[in-house]
């Protein structure tokens, strides 16, 4: 058992990394419950920053806008993405490989480039900045994630099941609705949650596309931080991080991420 020391060292290392990943987040959440405006210690428990948050209409409006955009993105990207995944799974056709490769640029190209390009294009066609532009951008960024996640689930589906249903007289819509969709439901839910997370956490593209004074929550936080930060931002940031981590926990449950269930 010479290995014991190494294993122990490894586990300590893993613990240190988890500390590195979570400590700053916990510190921030902690500070949102601290009365001092200048993050002074000793810690003095107070809910006043959350109360202030409740009265800050600018932040509340931005939060509402962010949630609505994220919900719309989720619905549109999930429907379009699932449809595309079904076609990519069921049919063999020329150019299929090309269509699959087309999914990578939105994921791989830095959002700074995509965002500025969208700004130029939407101005060029007369749409300009604003919520519609933000929504169009978010759906495009979320679509590849939905297609990848749903396709991964479809890969575990046995196509002979569809054939069997068809041979018993079911038309193709019935086959899809009664056989295929139930099988891939967990993949679709995971894809939808990914889409929500991509939109709700999106900063760069929203930053270039939203109208000043009409921005999403991350954009508002960015401009506030640059003006000098207050614990009010800690309060809203804590809420955001709790929401997005909860969404991702659900997504992980449904997408069977990181192991068999």
């Amino acid at each position, binding site marked *: 058992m010479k290995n014991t020391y190494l*294993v122990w060292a490894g*586990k300590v290392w*893993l613990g240190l*990394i988890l500390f*590195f*990943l*979570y*400590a*700053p*987040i916990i*510190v*921030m959440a902690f500070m949102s419950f601290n009365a001092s405006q200048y993050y002074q210690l000793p810690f003095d428990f107070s809910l006043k920053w959350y109360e202030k948050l409740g009265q800050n209409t600018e932040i509340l409006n931005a939060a509402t806008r962010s949630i609505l955009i994220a919900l719309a993105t989720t619905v549109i990207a999930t429907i*379009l993405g699932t*449809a*595309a995944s079904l076609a*990519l799974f069921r*049919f063999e*056709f020329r150019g299929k490989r090309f*269509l699959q490769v*087309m*999914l990578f*640029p939105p994921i791989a*190209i*830095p*959002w*700074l*480039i995509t965002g*500025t*390009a*969208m700004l*130029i294009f*939407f*101005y*060029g066609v007369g749409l300009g900045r604003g919520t519609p532009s933000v929504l*169009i*951008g978010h*759906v*495009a960024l979320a*679509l*590849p994630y939905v297609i990848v996640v749903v396709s991964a689930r479809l890969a575990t589906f046995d196509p002979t099941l569809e054939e069997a249903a068809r041979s018993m007289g079911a038309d193709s819509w019935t086959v899809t609705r009664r056989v295929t969709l139930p099988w891939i439901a967990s993949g679709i839910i995971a894809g939808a949650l990914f889409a929500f*997370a991509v939109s*709700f*956490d999106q*900063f760069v593209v929203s930053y*270039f596309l939203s109208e000043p004074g009409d921005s999403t929550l*991350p954009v508002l*936080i*960015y401009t506030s*931080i*640059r003006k000098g*930060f207050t614990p009010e*931002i800690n309060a809203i940031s804590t809420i*955001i*991080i709790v929401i*997005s*981590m909860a969404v*991702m*926990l659900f997504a992980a449950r449904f997408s069977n991420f*990181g*192991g068999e269930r």
Partner: protein
Amino acid sequence: MSTVLARQNRLKIVSLLSPAYIWLTVAIFLPLSAMLYFSFLSDVPFGDAEWHYTSENYQAFFQTSTYATLLWKSIKLGLTVTVISVLVGFPCAYVLAKAIKGKSREALFLLVILPFWSNSLVRIFCWAIVLRGNGVLELGLNAILPFEVDVNLMFSTPAIVIGLVHSYLPYVILTSYLALQAIDDNLIDAARSMGANKLTILWRVILPLSLPGLLAGAVLIFVPVVGSFMEPRILGGRVGTYFGTVIEDQFVAVFNWPLGAALSFILLAVVLVILATASPALRRAQT
């Protein structure tokens, strides 16, 4: 009969695929083309502005050394963050994949990649609170250490590197973990039974087999870091001028969109060269 079927199929394929791909075209590929076009204009062609075709936006990059220097600075930042993340993340992935088993492994793995899916801006803001002078890090260190230390990392390059490593570390852990998990334990046992020591096993068996995953993680970190602007702005302050922040300025402060478009395209070219170089490894990592 078969032509009818073929036509029916084609109709289904088109109706299922076109909404998604038209959306991607309108929101991603047309904008990228529009940006390429813009980068060759002298001014934005809106309203009654005078404009003509020109290559001076690209010349600006090559004539003054400012932009090239900043691009190099961004590439160096990308390399630093990538190397640190790989050195820190690979052992962590190894422990997860080989030393921990069962339910606790799943839970720990989820715990490692969870922050990655939470808001990146908020996480950078967390570091701003921790790192600033008289901040939590300073107070914490002074509480533990017997002597007074003065830690004000805020608005420095180390602060930017720490924030970016925190943002992207889960990537390399994720890809390395998936690659390491695929390595058969019997292979390692076989090497050991034939007398290979730990270093030899690591060097000759584990590293070569997990290299595609490691490389994939490295690329996934390097590419966004080269294009980062929000992290240097918040954590770097005055020293946080990078290629990304210059591009941001062209669009939100200076309003020289054609120059911004040209700089964005130069950045895109760098990214594409890197992705193309790494793509054989990336493809192997996928399968």
